[in-house]
């Protein structure tokens, strides 16, 4: 996106809004899809959460003050939507968040939209054992290959703390995979 300020102005102007929003959609739908999918794991849920995310982005655009980048703002909305979705789904099924994620991973094997093998499943199972923040940091760094600076803007955590979190996450995952 060339000039973000200009683009945000186009998003807020009723005349150019629709065209600008189309651009926003086509630019961000794939990265945000991956981001959400890594959190909620199955395709149908990701589809719901991604739609909600863009609807919220559209609704809250007028409140977007430009203190942060559009990119990190949208990732933040997507992250919140995904985490809220997971906790609601867990509550609805009377499960803890961890139990729900374990169940989802078991179902991944039969999922037509998952082509991972043993090691992928094992890695996902290892990730479930991590604390919430480490989970997010690991997924964003390892799978989505975001920069620490970008993750820092999205999660509002310092780069130093993120590096420590990632390091801990990798250690725990290695121990888990080795012993299982």
């Amino acid at each position, binding site marked *: 996106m060339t000039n973000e300020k200009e683009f945000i102005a186009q998003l807020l102007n009723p005349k150019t809004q629709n065209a600008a*929003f189309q651009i926003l959609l086509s630019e961000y739908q794939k990265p945000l899809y991956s981001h959400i999918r890594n959190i909620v*794991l199955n395709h149908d849920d990701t589809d719901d959460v991604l739609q909600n995310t863009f609807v919220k982005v559209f609704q809250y655009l007028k409140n977007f003050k430009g203190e942060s980048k559009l990119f990190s703002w949208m990732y933040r909305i997507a992250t919140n939507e995904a985490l809220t979705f997971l906790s609601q789904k867990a509550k609805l099924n009377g499960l803890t968040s961890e139990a729900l994620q374990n169940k989802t991973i078991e179902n991944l094997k039969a999922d037509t*939209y998952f*082509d991972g093998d043993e090691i992928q499943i094992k890695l996902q199972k290892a990730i479930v054992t991590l604390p919430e923040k480490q989970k997010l940091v690991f997924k964003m760094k390892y799978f989505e290959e975001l920069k620490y600076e970008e993750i820092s803007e999205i999660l509002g955590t310092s780069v130093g703390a993120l590096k420590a979190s990632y390091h801990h996450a990798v250690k725990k995952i290695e121990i888990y995979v*080795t012993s299982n």
Partner: protein
Amino acid sequence: MKAFKLENEPKIKPGFKTPDHYFDDFSAKVLQQINDKEVKVIPIYKRKKVVAMLAAAVVIIALMIPIVNNYNNSKELDEATLETYLSYESNLNQYDLIRELDTRDIEAINKNVALEEETLEDILSSNPNIESLISE
């Protein structure tokens, strides 16, 4: 068993796929949802809550009308009662009132009298029926 080291392994992909052409019509789906939400805006007069609140407000205002009126009435009544009380119930008489007058009040009264005399003379002199008035 060999210790598993993430950095020694080839990069593990998440392994997630999307249905074919999923992203082709995704934006249309989102725009549809946004439009649906905008259409669903309910006019204010159709909201039961707002209607109920308006009805309640009208009832409260209606109930307050007699109270407000009474409040004003009682104030006027009070003044009337006070006057009546002073003139009929108290022991104040003409002399008591005169004693309360200071020099300025007296001057004011004199002036009034002088003015009244002038006016009276004017009226009398300009009145063409003065003769008949006098004769009566």
